């Protein structure tokens, strides 16, 4: 665990789970994360957006698995056993997110969140709500509400 994590600066602190996708660091707030599992084959879904890999069975609950790399526009992942699925709950919906590896759980404070650089890509501004500097690593904070499938009608059609 890095030094910053141990010395929180403000009182509004929360924990984040950081993970890697294509050598880039991302994180989700820990209250969204239910558990982390290894990759298992999913059941293909018809008429699904390309970033939805299919359905998985988590102890009797059927939930969709999202290829986070594809969702973020980094290209589709060929899932294999080394990949990890982060099970997250957002807006009372449970979904799995396929990532390369889970790296750390860190304590951050709200004030550490830096604004997303003003880049043109709509995907970036929509899915990344800010940046944390943990040590000398740049960690992109994912906007959980936007990243889940089924947030808007346009995706249901897409």
């Amino acid at each position: 665990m890095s030094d910053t994590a141990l010395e929180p600066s403000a009182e509004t602190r929360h924990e984040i789970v950081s993970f890697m996708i294509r050598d880039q660091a991302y994180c989700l707030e820990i209250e969204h994360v239910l558990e982390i599992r290894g990759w298992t084959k999913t059941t293909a879904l018809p008429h699904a957006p390309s970033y939805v890999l299919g359905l998985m069975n988590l102890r009797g609950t059927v939930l969709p698995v999202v290829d986070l790399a594809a969702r973020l526009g980094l290209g589709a992942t060929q899932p294999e056993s080394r990949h990890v699925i982060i099970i997250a709950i957002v807006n009372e919906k449970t979904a799995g997110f396929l990532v390369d590896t889970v790296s750390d759980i860190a304590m951050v404070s709200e004030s550490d969140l830096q604004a997303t650089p003003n880049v043109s890509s709509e995907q970036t501004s929509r899915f990344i709500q800010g940046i944390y500097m943990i040590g000398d690593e740049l960690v992109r904070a994912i906007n959980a509400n936007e990243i889940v499938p089924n947030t808007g009608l346009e995706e249901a059609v897409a």
Partner: protein
Amino acid sequence: MSELSEMFFQECDELLEGLVKSLGEIESGSADDETVNSMFRAVHSIKGGAGAFGLTAVVSFAHVFENVLDDVRSKKLAIDDNVVALFFMASDQLTDLIDACKSDGEAAAEANEKLVEELSDLHSSVNRDVAPELEEEISFQPMALDLGLDLAEPNAGPAEGQKEFEITFAPRLALYEAGHEPALLIRTLQDMGELSVTADLSSVGTASLDANAEAWIVWHLHLKPDAGVDESTIREVFEFVEGLCRLDIETSDTAAFSGALPDMEALSGLPDLPPAVLPGLEAAPEAAAETPQPPQSELQSSAQIKKKAAPVNNTIRVDLERVDRLINLVGELVISEAMLRQSMSGTDHERRNSVDDAMSQLRQLSGMLQEGVMAIRAQPVRGLFQRMSRIVRETAKEAGKSAQLVTIGDSTEVDKTVTERLVEPLTHMIRNAVDHGLEAPEARLAAGKPEKGFVTLEAMHRSGRVIITLSDDGAGINRPKVRAIAESKDLVRPGEDLSDADIDNLLFRPGFSTATEVSNLSGRGVGMDVVRNEIQSLGGRVSISSTPGVGTKMTISLPLTLAVLEGMVVIVEGEALVVPTLALRETLQPGQAQIHEFCENDRALSINGQLIPVSDLGSALGYRKHLTDLSKQVLLMIEGDAGQRAAIAVDKIVDQREVVIKGLEQNYMSIPGISAATILGDGNIALIVDTDQMFSTQAPEASELSVSSGPRRHYDNAGTEHHV
């Protein structure tokens, strides 16, 4: 909301349900004395509970209502149609008041006042000759008490004429055995005014130890009540020990008493009231026997309790979520069992015999367990139907019509989720039936029908489904008018050849509304198309039939439960899918059928001289590109509601089994062509095919459905829109 108040509201719902049921019995003439008693008890319990939660609006309304019910109970007031109508309105109002408390909102004050006035008028009209206070006392004879209490001087006590109470509280052993504590009850009384307590210890050591015998200590309590405390309030304190004690309450005038409290020592020396001095009990000598007979009044009340207990089912209230969790767990168990069985099949033969026995037993047990758990969710449709009777009354009143709901088969059991989600569509259909279906009273009389229109709601089980029919005895669908409207709204081409059934079904088309002017009742922004969508999302179907001048009948057919489905497991492009057996008519082996090609890769199957469209399930769901050769495919013949047929091609059939339905909307969204998912024996997920969307003739609607974010949300939107 706290757990306690939640329990109270749940109980209220049940009591109100009972109340409406009793009213229905009265209306249909099948009521007896016990019906009125049970109504009185229901209102009284609501009043008591509401009092405990400080819901004053409910208490005061329930009080007025209760008074009138008491008049009926004591046969001072005869029930006629007007009284029944008033009672219906009163119980509706009571429901509204409680609902308002639930949501911290406010019920319509105007209607409340008017009803309270009407009820009070009724109450005072039958009690004109009886002084209001006296009436409560009638059943009690004045008691000549010979207690030290009576002797002291009256001092500045309560106002002149204020009643004081002499309470004799003789717990039986059973009271103690049930864990009640007299001290707590006495303390409650203390809060109601000035209280003096005397323990009568004279029988200590003499009585038998039979649970029904009175305990050795008898309490004499003298209460000078605060304002607002009357006998019924005192009785409420002892409500929970009813039947576990002897309780006598006597009223006496202030003048006879003092406020001074004689202490225990002073009294214990006095000769105590022998148990024989009991009000209302003529057979004094008998009561003096070692095990005193309970007084008559008590016998009566315990008889009443028994009677009350008899018709009530022995039920418990369980949080739906818990049941669902149990269902999920049992589903898991069944899956694990199947996985275990699969992995056991690899082991060597000798070990397997004994394992097989155990396994088959496990399989049987888990199957039974699953069945049993599913049955928990089944609920009679009675509650749903009763809600509908209110809709009929209100709609009829607003429309200036006279209508009555007749319910048949209201003990038919349906999955609770189904009944809950039926409320809105059914409400809408009932409003339509009363508003559009039934004619105005004059028109009815002119047509030789009784002025009062009847709307019949019937539920029954038929071949694994629940059929709910809603029929009215109105004028039937005005087909020329429907057609004219449909033409004006471009739903059909003018002069198009339409059968009667086609015209009737126009009512279900989106954007269709027959009311020339949008009335307050039916024109709520939702049409029959939304009703149909909602029912379809429950896995149900709705159809309509009508005879001019005789009435209209709507039939809803629903699955018994949303949780399980009988299906055929098939493989398409390596993926397992489930086709519901319900829609399945027959299966055709490869090469068995003759397939004809048409343009645009359309294909049809000729069988029994009929041409049936064929589609490949794999390409329909986007698993593969168009499949040119169907000769190696198995064909499943499916049939829709209206008898339309289609064949779907799959790679192979694996198995036929019951599957547990797992909804997709909960964590994902609805998928065109797929109704839900399930988990197979090996833990893998299989999608359940929505066969209704496999008929190409329905294509325009199916595609529309896939674009909208699900019919349910659409319905909600329309509903809220109207309320704003």
